[in-house]
């Protein structure tokens, strides 16, 4: 289901919590599973839940509550552009519109070749660097002028 390497990282997460509180590792383990699989299907969620001795339904509740979990397949690169107000005052919406235009898709869509998914996000806690975007949840890109967006798309090609 998941590689030995991912499972070894699960164990490191579990070790952070008191022995009887394994469930505390659910967020980190779902994240690691998603990094390996790209998105979380029901089987993966159930597998992670079983690993942590918790009911699958409890793990599903967590996966649906936190919005960085992908509950549907996404492109190879998920680009989440912040359009919340502080960013919007400094070009956040323009950056999102520019990307939509370059990729030929609307917000929330994936390109036909399965390369890119474009979504908007709420505040990423980096408003001073606006416009900002997260690539696959874990890599933050700052000061995204059209030039830098072109460069980013080129790098990810």
């Amino acid at each position, binding site marked *: 289901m998941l590689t030995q390497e991912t499972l070894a990282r699960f164990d490191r997460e579990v070790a*952070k919590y008191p022995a009887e*509180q394994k469930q505390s590792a659910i967020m980190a383990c779902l994240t690691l599973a998603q990094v390996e699989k790209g998105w979380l299907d029901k089987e993966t969620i159930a597998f992670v839940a079983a690993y942590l001795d918790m009911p699958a339904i409890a793990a599903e509740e967590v996966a649906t509550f*936190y919005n960085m979990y992908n509950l549907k397949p996404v492109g190879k690169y998920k680009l989440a552009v912040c*359009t*919340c107000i*502080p960013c919007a005052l400094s070009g956040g919406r323009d950056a999102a519109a520019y990307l939509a235009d370059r990729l030929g898709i609307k917000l929330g869509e994936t390109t036909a070749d399965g390369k890119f998914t474009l979504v908007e996000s709420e505040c990423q*806690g980096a408003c*001073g660097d606006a416009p900002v975007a997260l690539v696959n949840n874990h890599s*933050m890109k700052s000061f995204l002028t059209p030039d830098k967006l072109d460069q980013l798309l080129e790098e990810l090609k």
Partner: protein
Amino acid sequence: MAILGSINPIMTASWQGDAGWGIDAYIKRGGYEALKKILSENIPPEGVIAEVKKSVLRGRGGAGFPTGLKWSFMPRTMPGDKYIVCNTDEGEPGTFKDRDIMRYDPHSVIEGMIIGAYAMGATRGYNYIHGEIYELYERFEAALAEARAAGFLGQKILGSEHSFELFAHHGYGAYICGEETALLDSIEGKKGQPRFKPPFPASFGLYGRPTTVNNTETFASVPFIIRLGSENFLNAGKENNGGTKLFSISGHVERPGNYEIPLGTPFATLLEMAGGMRGGRKLKAVIPGGSSSPVLPADIMMQCTMDYDSISKAGSMLGSGAVIVMDETVCMVDVLNRLSFFYHEESCGQCTPCREGTNWLYQIVHRIETGEGKPEDLDMLLSICSNICGRTICALGDAAAFPVMSFLKHFRSEFEYHIQHKTCLVP
């Protein structure tokens, strides 16, 4: 570098940018001396709490609750596990100070937490880190490994009788987890939904055990209070508002970014430090303490000093120190529309007034923005707000209502214009 400007800085004075986050650099600039001083001089836990009280450090997460007082609520001598938790779930629109602390000075947070654990008798701690700054979650784990290797964490810290374990936990995209009790549920591996307070975390916290939650900047201030002395820390700010504070400035200024200034500094000075208004345009309005704080028009804001008391007297809140600056080109209906969407999206849904109310607020502001508004909508908005305020489990309900009420109080004519002309007053 790391910080764009400062006046008599304390926390950021010796930051060295991305190259200086590691333990060697931190120790070279005086790091872990506060902890060593406490242990070597045998300063008792009550003594540490007394120092923090005297410094008048107030919670930097937004509510401004006196930190020393909160620490004194912990049943220090009660047997069994007790926890301290650092709140790095920074997600309030406009706030980005904790990210820089985590980026350039993670060991100041670690040292502050070790001192806090000593003072409160806590055995374990967690730092809950906003999922969006995952790169800094990884950096923090590396910093923890350094601190463990150096003997600052673990059993018998620096040969003392004191032991403390500290771990990192990350969020994954839920603003509400910044609310301290939602955060605790999230660490427990559940949906992050706020709990009723009281009981406060000091009596029923993580896994039901005594717990204290403090903001990243709050913990990071503690080593400096011990090193400088509480008196000096207090005097760096003003009466009832001890110390300097980081302010995050975003929006229509020339140089958005973080600035460290003494509490009590005039807003005009801060604006000037940030390079003034972008393109020399005119200041229209400021949201002074993160999106949850009421907006203030330019003339009122220009009279304020940046501290808890002055901003609250002006009818808003210092909050997390997130100053969102808007110039004359901004349409207030557009801004409120986007903000209302945020609260509607982020409501955790467990209280009806908040779940339904935030949805209504957004629907109505949205129809005003798109030219479908009706004259009676403005009073309806205010009535929805009064049905939310004070009737919810956590402060998110109020946080959704404050912007609506304050935008209507100060900029009602723009909303009326939108309803009447189906277009913006602002060109």
